[in-house]
């Protein structure tokens, strides 16, 4: 038997074929590897391999002071930098029993919602591009630029801000801040229907996403799938509602919930969240107190009293938990970060098994994974 024939016979006898998707696959948007076993075109089993950008942030935090820790949290989920900063800041403030000024609470929530919109815009761009609509990428980034300009004006940075610090904010916001946001909302409310016309209603897009990768509510709770991905399955997990923080108790908004739980509804949940975020922003801008307070009095060296503190925050991708164990020193004894993407990643095997390999990109895209947040 010739070599070539031998290979064909072997393939027929053992039809399982293993390929690696990643670590440098364009659709994982970072260094993540899926070990996929295939039978023909169908995915039989999928094993995620992570750790390619493991930086040991939890270990590093143990030798840094609390204000220094803030700068590392930016580097977790770099698309929700404000929310990550806020989580650690709130945890430290709760431990010290410090009440921040009302104005600071409003600014923090405004920043979180702006960040959420920017993050969903980038996700929409990349998701569209993964499925073959390259125009999405230009549309999304064009509008995201407006938010980044607001950020740049106030904080001097576009992605990693480190702006929310224990006790308040790093410095005051730019005088144009409010106007910039009202202009943006006016602009984006006109542009969002364009997104829907372009992608949501597209027949090819719907055929590639509807009824695909269905996640039940029980599985969502069991696997800890939070954020829009969990809420598309009917798991009511919005921390802004469950354990309200900052200025969220003062605003009226609804939690986006769907029961279908497929790839298409995970997409719809995020699109609706952008609209809801704009509603929240409008209310916050109206109610925000005037003045120039941006921080409360803090001691120059922050030492947390002995004990354990936990803070939950809703980022653009789900629930972020910060667990600080303090022994009374200026550095945390142990700092654990429960990141949303870490839990969300491991549902991939369950979602993708039984579907075609071409659907894998749509399913992983709909979970909106950010890899440095998984690896830490």
């Amino acid at each position, binding site marked *: 038997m010739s070599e070539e024939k031998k290979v064909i016979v072997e393939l027929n006898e053992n039809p399982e074929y293993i390929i690696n998707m990643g670590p440098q696959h364009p659709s994982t948007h970072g260094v993540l590897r899926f070990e996929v076993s295939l039978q023909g075109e169908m995915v039989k089993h999928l094993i995620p391999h992570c750790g390619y950008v493991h930086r040991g942030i939890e270990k590093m935090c143990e030798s840094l002071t609390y204000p220094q820790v803030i700068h590392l949290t930016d580097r977790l989920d770099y698309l929700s930098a404000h929310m990550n900063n806020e989580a650690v800041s709130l945890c430290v403030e709760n431990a010290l029993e410090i009440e921040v000024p009302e104005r600071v609470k409003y600014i923090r929530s405004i920043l979180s919602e702006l960040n959420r919109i920017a993050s969903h815009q980038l996700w929409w761009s990349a998701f569209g591009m993964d499925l073959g609509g390259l125009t999405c990428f230009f549309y999304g980034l064009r509008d995201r630029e407006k938010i980044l300009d607001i950020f740049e004006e106030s904080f001097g940075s576009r992605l990693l801000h480190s702006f929310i610090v224990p006790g308040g904010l790093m410095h005051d916001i730019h005088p144009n801040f409010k106007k910039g946001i009202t202009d943006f909302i006016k602009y984006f409310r006109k542009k969002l229907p364009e997104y829907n016309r372009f992608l949501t209603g597209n027949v090819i897009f719907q055929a590639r996403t509807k009824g695909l990768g269905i996640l039940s509510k029980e599985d969502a709770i069991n696997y*800890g799938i939070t954020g829009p991905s969990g809420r598309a399955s009917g798991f009511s997990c919005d921390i802004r509602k469950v354990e309200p923080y900052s200025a969220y108790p003062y605003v009226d908004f609804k939690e986006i919930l769907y029961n279908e739980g497929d790839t298409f509804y995970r997409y719809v949940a995020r699109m609706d969240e952008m609209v809801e975020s704009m509603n929240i922003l409008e209310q916050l801008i109206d109610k925000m107190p005037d003045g120039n307070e941006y921080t409360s009095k803090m001691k120059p060296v922050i030492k947390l009293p002995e004990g354990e503190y936990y803070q939950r925050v809703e980022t653009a991708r789900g629930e972020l938990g910060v667990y600080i164990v303090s022994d009374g020193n200026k550095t945390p004894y142990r700092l654990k970060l429960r990141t949303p993407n870490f839990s969300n990643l491991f549902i991939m095997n369950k979602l993708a098994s039984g579907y075609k390999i071409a659907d894998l990109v749509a399913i992983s895209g709909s979970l909106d994974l950010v890899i440095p947040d998984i690896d830490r």
Partner: protein
Amino acid sequence: MEQEQLKEKIIALLPEAEFNVNKQYLDINVPSDKMHAFVKLLKESDDLKLDYLFCLSGVDWKTHFTIVYHLTSTFFGHSLVLKVKTTGRENPEVASVADIYATAEFHEREVYDLMGIKFSDHPDLRRLFLDETFIEGFPLRKDYKDEINIIER
């Protein structure tokens, strides 16, 4: 459910539970041999229904380790913190709860990877972030030494 009510129910379920001081959540120590059965009970009992494990972490206390479970109920909204101590530092081992909460499988793998705590009856206990060939110990332990990459302050 108020914390007081929750406390009464916990005492009824597990009389030997020790309560810790915690301003935020109800916080209990559970003996490691009763842990698995107790967690199962917490998830399945009709008036507690603690069905969502939102955080699982390991803490190195130099003489022993503790595994901390943050649980909450998506039906009633109450939360509970469970703590399990390991006996000593040599070969620490705790029963896995991966069969009760699917998310625990990966959180436990992370704790095993970085802290070296074994979880008995875990379906797939391998390193998660670090390479299988990494043999220099467990980085999140307090006695971990790395002269090149960690600067002592």
